[in-house]
């Protein structure tokens, strides 16, 4: 299979960048070879869709705003009532979801080619992301595995917290290079490593 090109292109430069005085504050990398599917339930089928997502992925969710689950490369999170991002490293994810979720239960759209996923980790991640997004990144307000939909300079982004100091940011593929550069500028203060 042809390898999908990264939209980050020549702006993805592995190595250490920015202020190195206090070590590496955050680590940035692009998560590749993922399948990303948005699933939307009808207003009265949310519990059934959550059950179907669980049977297709093994990640069982309750119907609670923003709730998510993470297991290795797989993840799922809600970002609106009855709407979920389902992410996995297997190319048949959409197929498995389609066999579990009929049009009576909801709809889905494959966003694999429309989103770029950037993972930011390290002790400075909350600080760096707070420069870009007007939401509370502290762990009590944004618990592990939860998802958020928000804006960066009027551009939509979805964010999931992976652990206490790691986040996945889902940005539009066409804005990914611009966002990557902005993220680098924001991270320069604490020093960042691109892997």
């Amino acid at each position, binding site marked *: 299979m042809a390898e999908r090109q990264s939209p980050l292109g020549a702006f993805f430069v592995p190595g250490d960048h920015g202020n190195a005085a206090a070590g590496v504050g955050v680590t940035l990398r692009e998560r590749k070879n993922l399948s990303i599917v948005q699933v939307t339930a009808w*207003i009265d089928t949310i519990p059934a869709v959550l059950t179907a997502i669980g049977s297709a992925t093994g990640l069982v969710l309750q119907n609670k*705003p*923003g709730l998510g689950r993470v297991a290795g490369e797989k993840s799922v999170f809600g*970002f*609106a*009532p009855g*709407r979920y991002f389902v992410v996995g490293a297997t190319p048949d994810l959409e197929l498995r979801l389609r066999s579990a979720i009929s049009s009576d239960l909801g709809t889905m759209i494959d966003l694999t080619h429309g989103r770029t996923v950037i993972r930011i980790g390290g002790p400075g991640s909350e600080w760096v992301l707070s420069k870009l997004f*007007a*939401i509370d990144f502290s762990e009590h*307000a944004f618990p592990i595995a939860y998802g*958020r*939909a*928000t*804006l960066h300079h*009027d551009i*939509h982004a979805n964010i999931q917290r992976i652990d206490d100091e790691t986040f996945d940011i889902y940005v539009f593929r066409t804005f990914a290079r611009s966002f990557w550069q902005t993220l680098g500028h924001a991270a320069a203060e604490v020093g960042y490593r691109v892997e």
Partner: protein
Amino acid sequence: MIIKCPYCGPRDVIEFIYQGDATRKRPEPASTDQAAWNAYVYDRTNTGGSHREFWLHGGGCRQHLVVTRDMSSHAISSVALARDVAASINDGGRA
């Protein structure tokens, strides 16, 4: 101004788009009452106090909300998903 979205929690007003007066009552589609349609489209009372409004959380969950806001102080007394408000009205109540 901070609007507390029922799904996303408190968010800055930059994430929201104002969508107008939520107190208007649309005439029946078959109505030919020109005065009623004119009032629906153009007339606003501009109360200056507590007011029900539609807002779209375009920068978050993309849900339509019904917000009750004091037009003088911008204090917000209630926020609900518009679809919940509509369901409540359809059930005979009023949110």
